[in-house]
């Protein structure tokens, strides 16, 4: 067991990621707050439909409606990206688990999946708020919405599956398989809902193109939320390891008695 541990370096609480975790958390809080402030105070507004006149605001001529709802986008897209990165990490640790059969990697995979679920829920919330205001409905079967709904359902099913198997080894293997399948399934889902030319469901296209200030704000938010995600991952991982050590200690004490 010890020799095996020497071959495969196992993630453990207190290693280098934990030493940088407080700094990263601080950076995450600062950057996401900065991103939030930039989104509302610095980035140029986005205009929508035209109005019947022109008005001079802050030195430029404006003839379109101001879209405040677009500000949701600065957190919505980074949150979605972070959720997908967390999903990719969950699948990576799942592969490591299947190759080494070390319970530790399963814990990593589980925690990454939890972070993915958290950020998927955040994505759904922000997306729903924007959809509700802009399109006037709570739900449409638009490719991105559909993909995220499916992703959320798979992640929820993953946790139900974890709790429905009693043997730890088996539960770990099954969840590893599902997290790999989820990572494969989600891009296919997006491709399929996007590529099929559908005359039944209108695909809503937003006029694209980001200005430089929008890009910068988005990057700051993304970086901040990545840091927050990482800090949450480490905190949860440490907590899980502590609980596992408590369980192990209980067992040794019971054996001694």
């Amino acid at each position: 067991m010890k020799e095996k541990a020497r071959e495969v370096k196992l993630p453990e609480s207190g290693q280098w990621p934990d030493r940088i975790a407080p700094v990263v958390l601080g950076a995450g809080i600062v950057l996401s707050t900065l991103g939030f402030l930039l989104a509302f105070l610095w980035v140029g507004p986005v205009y929508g439909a035209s109005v019947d006149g022109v008005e001079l605001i802050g030195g430029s001529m404006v003839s379109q409606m101001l879209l405040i709802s677009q500000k949701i986008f600065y957190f919505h897209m980074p949150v979605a990206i972070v959720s997908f990165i967390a999903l990719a990490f969950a699948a990576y640790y799942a592969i490591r688990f299947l190759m080494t059969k070390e319970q530790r990697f399963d814990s990593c995979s589980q925690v990454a999946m939890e972070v993915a679920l958290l950020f998927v829920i955040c994505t759904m919330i922000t997306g729903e708020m924007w959809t509700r205001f802009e399109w006037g409905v709570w739900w449409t079967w638009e490719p991105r919405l559909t993909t995220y709904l499916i992703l959320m359902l798979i992640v929820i099913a993953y946790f139900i599956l974890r709790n429905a198997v009693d043997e730890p080894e088996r539960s770990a293997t099954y969840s590893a398989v599902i997290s790999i399948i989820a990572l494969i399934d989600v891009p296919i889902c997006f491709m399929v809902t996007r590529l099929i030319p559908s005359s039944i469901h209108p695909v809503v296209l937003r006029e694209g193109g980001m200005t430089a200030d929008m890009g910068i704000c988005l990057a700051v938010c993304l970086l901040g939320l990545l840091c927050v995600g990482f800090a949450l991952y480490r905190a949860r991982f440490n907590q899980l390891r502590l609980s596992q050590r408590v369980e192990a200690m209980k067992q040794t004490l019971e054996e001694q008695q």
Partner: protein
Amino acid sequence: METPKRPSSFAQYKTLLAKDLRQEFRTREMLVSMGVYALLVIVVFGVALSFARPGEEFLEVSAGLLWALIVFTSLLGLNRSFSHEIEEGCLEGLLLAPLDHGVVFLSKATSNMVFLLIVEAIAIPLYWLFFSSLAHPAETGWLMVAPILVGSVGIAGIGTLLSTITVNTRGKDVMLALLFVPIVFPLLYACVSATTAAIVGGDLMAESFMVSLALAAGYDVIMILASWVLYDFVVGA
């Protein structure tokens, strides 16, 4: 002294498949229950559509209803396909034999697909018979055979992996549905699109039939490869 030659993978596959088919055709337990279940789903659709006006509009939803029928029926079949293996301890015996687990997967997936296709061959004509008063499919309607074949292959492939997982869990029937429906969603979407295109015909047909079919086939290839690789870990656990 000569050691007995190890049978080839293909021979193993044939033996396992023949075993499954023989077992099923002797009792016809699963085929009958799937067939009756499909009929019951059609009855439920009949109630649901009892106030619908006959007309071309029905064609646009009929493919979706047809696939709902296929999904529910296949869920029933997939749930049953492993439960009798577990009940009689057959799976353990099978895994003790010096077999490649990939062969077990392929044979099981093939038998699931054969049963699904048999049930579909009965249920789909029945579906059109019962709803022929509402609307008739376009001339290209027979092309829906292609998405149904591609969809059945995919459902059997990923469904076999998932039913092997869920057969060992608590509340396995619900668990299978929980995993199966979201994971198979892209395939379902592509197949519904292709089937609708075939039934409605015209411009829609030319526009989206081939794309949808190609995407469904792509899903099949990727997911069956992934299931084939992962199956070894699943049965080994």
